[in-house]
């Protein structure tokens, strides 16, 4: 790629990043009454989207290849356990992350 082609590519990526984010707000502006189905979705869609994002976090885990998702499973179990026990996001998250880092760096070394 030439210098200018690099900049054009970067500019196109920028546009392709912005447009999907702006689209719903352009389609359903504040002034107008949004269609009924949008209101119905507001009580269900957020929870479903968060659920799918949790799955998204584990998308690169392979059950068939070493280490078979075991570090993820152990770290997740620790995180959920601590979260139910202490109900503090930061403590749960730090526990899960430290456990996971130790596992992938020291125990399950590829």
């Amino acid at each position: 790629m030439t210098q200018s082609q690099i900049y054009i590519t970067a500019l196109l990526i920028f546009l392709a990043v912005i447009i999907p984010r702006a689209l719903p707000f352009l389609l359903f502006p504040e002034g107008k009454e949004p269609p009924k189905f949008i209101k119905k979705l507001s009580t269900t869609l957020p929870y479903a989207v968060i659920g799918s994002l949790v799955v998204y976090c584990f998308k690169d885990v392979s059950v068939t290849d070493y280490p078979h998702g075991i570090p993820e499973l152990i770290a997740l179990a620790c995180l959920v356990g601590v979260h139910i026990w202490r109900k503090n996001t930061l403590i749960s998250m730090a526990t899960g992350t430290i456990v996971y880092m130790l596992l992938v760096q020291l125990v399950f070394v590829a």
Partner: protein
Amino acid sequence: MIISMSESKVKQSTFQRYLMAGRAAFPHTIPVMAGYVFAGISFGLLMNHAQMPAWLTIVMCITMISGSSQFLAVDLLQSAFNPLSTVVINLMVNSRYSFCGLTLLDRYKGTGKKKPYLIWNITDETFVINLTSNPPEGIHLTDYMFMVAFMDHMYWIIGGSIGALIGELIKFNMDGIGFAMTGMFTCIFLDQWGINKNHKPAVIGVIVAIISLLIFGAQSFMLPAMLVILAILLIFDKYVNVKVGEEEQK
């Protein structure tokens, strides 16, 4: 004199308003800081290896604010020039943010001048925090959500800049730090599970995403998953929603 004094008072109070909002928002963004700074450093390093100038790395972090698109961009910038496929691939990768936006329509209503910035800064992490957390009393929701978006944005820029400028000097083994964001999403999911007695939407989200992942693979499962989720929630609206009312009455 009097005018300038009152002006400075107004300025100070505006500054203090944001400071208060920032203080309230900061704890919620700590997991994002861990994730973004280190992901940003990795991005900066990749851009260095691809022989891209540091300023482009930093400008991309400032303007795009999208990990998936930027990591993809490193590949695209090194391949043959193909504007059409660049646009199509990136629209696909970012299409799920339309669903995030759809979900945020209500929350971002009435945010006025800050709305474009909030929309521009929709990432998975900022989306979840701004959707689920609320400021303590006395702090305006708009200021609070703005500060969440702003701090997350800064973490990403700082990470990218460190990676691009001094990334080669870092010797600390960061493998696994990405679990910070997995952990944040999981905690928020658990909190939502506790608050909302209607678990059907959450279960639908998880199951549809898993099935879609098995069918379409890690690279392209989110768009079909989001479309199916949307279809199920709309078509089986009564089934998914009616139970909420019943459970609330109990």
